[in-house]
């Protein structure tokens, strides 16, 4: 199957493949999302449904030695989410096990 047939000519075509599929999105600010991708645009703004957001919160304990910070993970779920594109680091299909 050649490329012209597959219709993949630019990076966004790859994201198009994941439309209405579950995707993993890494965001700035130690956040990650998984959700079903419904729409995107050139700014990488995304619309996701059935989203689970994972937020890493690094707590520096006073007096603890360097690099001994504890990481708390907070999760929350949303029905539908608009993700502003400037926070998106990567979009990928979720790893299949």
């Amino acid at each position: 199957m050649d490329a012209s047939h597959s219709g993949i000519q630019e990076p966004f075509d790859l994201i198009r493949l994941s439309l209405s599929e579950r995707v993993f999105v890494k965001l700035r600010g130690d956040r990650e999302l998984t959700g079903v991708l419904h729409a995107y645009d050139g700014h990488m703004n995304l619309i996701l449904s059935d989203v689970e957001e994972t937020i890493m919160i690094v707590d520096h304990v006073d007096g603890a030695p360097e690099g001994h910070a504890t990481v708390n993970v907070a999760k929350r779920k949303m029905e539908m989410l608009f993700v502003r594109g400037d926070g998106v680091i990567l979009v990928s299909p979720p790893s299949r096990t």
Partner: protein
Amino acid sequence: MSFFGFEQNNDLENEKRRFLEGGLSGAKQEDVAVYTWGEESYDGLGDALQEGGDELNDETFGAAEDIGKDFDFSGTALPEHQRAAPHQPAQPPERGSSQQQTSQTSQRASHLEPSHSSQLDAIWGNKSPFSVLPRSNGSSRTVDQLATQSPKYTHKPSSLNLGPDLHKGVHTLEEIEKEMLAAAAAQQRRQQQQVDEHSVQQELQEMQLQEHMLHQQHQLATPGLLQSPTRAHAQRPPAAAAAAVGIQNTATPPPRMHPHSQSPRFHQQQQQHQIHLLQMQQQQQQQQRQLLELQEQRERQQRQQLLQLQEQLKLEELERQQQLRLQQQQLQEQQYIQNHLLHQRGISPALSDLHHRGMSPAMGERARRVGRQSPAIMSPQGTLDVPFAQNMQYLPQNIQMQQRLLAEMAQAEFLSTMQGPGHSERDLREARELQEMLRVEAMRKIMEAERMEEKRKRKLDKIAHMSRYNDLMTQSDKDFITRIQVSQLVTQDPYADDFYAQVYGAILRSRMGIATSEDRVLRFGSGGGVGLGLAQKVHGRRQGAMQRMEAQVERIVNNARLREKEKTSLNNLQGALGRTSGRSYKAAPRQLLQVDTSNVSTSPTTSHATAAHISKADSTKQEGEGAAREAAKMGREALATATEGLVRKDPLTHREALVKLEHLYDLVLDVEQRRRDQPPLEEVEEFEHWTVECNAIIDQIFDELMVSVPLETSHPHPFVSLITPIKGKKLLPRVARIFELQRMQVLLTLIVACFLQLDVVRQAPLLDSLEETREVKDLEVQTQAFQNSVVQSILPVIAKAQMRLVIGLFGILLDECTVHSIAMTRVSRTPGIALLTLFLSRVEVLRHNVATGSEVEELPTAEEMQRWHMMYNLLFDMIRPNLQLLFPSVRLALQANTSFVNIPNADVIDQPVWQFLATLAVHANEEQQQALVGGLREIVLENVATATKGWGNDSEERRRLRLANVNIFLHALGLDSSQITL
């Protein structure tokens, strides 16, 4: 005096000037009021500020000569000076009216104002050469109306005008006395004429109004000229002055809004507002005044005259004493008056004014009208050195103030009536009642008027505020902006760019029963256009706007096309020396990513799921690997072909499936678009061309769905891979619309043949879990999509299927189940049950057709029916042992170790099973029916019991559903739940 407002500017120039001015002006600075130009609360009166008090300049700067007013172009101050001009004895009525005007002004401003309009002062104060010009009756009267009825336009009275006093040295005391006596005599003479005058005056009032209107209209014609001094000295200065002030009063306009630069429309508007305002006030006040006047007039004329005479004499005496300033005793007396006045002022300026003169307000007003006061009355007030700021406090700045004064006047009048001598008790009471009634009425009217006025004022303010920016943009400015906006909306494919609105609009329209097939799109010849979105309720204005936009867009497009043509033609190169610039870089900025779309050498969608390669080096490496794999695969395929006669392939990866699906969607959308653009049947050639193209695409879709690929090509079958993602499932209904029946039958056969390969079937047992994991949820969603999309799209195919096909498909399904022992558990889950139900019900319909003899064609043969019974028995035997396990709720209950009744939402998930069992029961023979009933007795009983007796806390809704479920099955057996007794 205005420069005193800029005291902060402590530059040397100021310092020097202030030093030169010395003590007198320095002391004055303290008393200067703080002006607030430019602030929000600024009422614009500053514009009307009369730069009076220049008389002091002589004293201050030592200029002894009479300067005159040749260069005083401020204009606003002039008319009053003029009106107070000489020739009083010659024109008594006129002077009367002029006095009325000034006294009214002074009443509103302050009774302490030095009335330079009184005869003597006027003589002294008048420095203008124009003052000798005669005045027309009408103009002065108009001023009266204006001044009294529109306090908004009364400029600040010249309270600083101390002119008369400064010129006292010019005349000798004897002269003064002589003048005064003459004036007093003239007044007495005039008082006799008073009665006649009153009747005349009332007639005149109506004339005045008309005159006034005429003047206003005249002003409309020449608004710009009104402020010029020559005009002011001509016959209509007062109206001009008032109008000029009125214009200035309407807030500080932005630079472009200056009267001269305004559009005539704006100006006219302003004028009309003013006129309207004036008219309203006129009506009100005339009503008030007439009411008060008429009733007072008759009964008290004599008394007034007496009182007035006495008062005048007394005050003239006072005046003389004051001016001479000889005796201490007299000074004390004067001081007493001052104190008295100051005390009175505490109540209200109007009242104190009246009390001071010792007459009723109506009388006072009338007196002022006719102008019988001697200058002596005013003079003592003028000499009282009350701070100016205090005077300004009483400046009538709006109508409210004036109306309140009127109210107070009415009250004062009422009081004086009470004290009036020579009335009997009865008369007094009647008069009092009448007064009271009138007063209440007047108050009510005043309040109402005030409210209305307030409202209108607010509205006017708002309009004035907004109209500041009227006409700031020219029509071409507006067009320019509209052009920019519209150009953003024009696209090559207006329908596609407005797709969702268009489709939604079409759905809405079809729902409302409006059959309009046309798209809501504006199209232009070149293929560009604008999507109009949803059809809205079209109002007249909106329609107009749409048409305007249409025309404008058309024009823009045409212009752009012309420009383009011009650019490409060689004509524009004529006369161009050297290089001609091509495209502006500003118009088309350099792209950051320049992807060569025409020559993409990489194939990111080879079997290994890698991301797209952007760098060349990477891609070549990948290509090599890909090539190797491809070669190996081809070898294997060649081998397979050689041995089995079919091509074995690796199953499609998820990624490949997605890529294919995207392409399929493109094709499907293309076909859908083409179907919308179907040419009319009349244009045979075009229609044929269209048909060929459409069919070509549909063929391509069919190919790419890989439906006709042999079953053994891969496991799972490529088609199964394609409908594994949810969007693959959702594609089927759209494909079903464009495929003909035969292709759909192939598709159906393939689905049935590969049924066990389907993800929803394979993973179906996963659903028998109460756990809410991601997988379970995703599977639920997938199953839902399968039911709604795949089953729905094959349903019409099965509904039309002949017996042979049904038996064939049924056979395929059962074959699978017999071969694989586990298959039955999978098939008996939701999707399989649905498919079986479809087959069973179709056969039932076919059997029914045989019985009734309808659908004569394609009647199932006896042989086919026999085969059907065989297969049915096979199915029944397979299901029979685990009848109860067909129910998802039972399976769930088994896992959770609880009763199936406790499973949440059990009735909803069990419903398809009840339907399946019903169709099963219809086909069953007696023995099979008994087996069914025996196997399901427990569940039926349980359901009926919980539904009828209301065990548990189920809602009414759920119980009804539960009973309905049971009844579906029981009805098929010819029973009903009501027959079951517990």
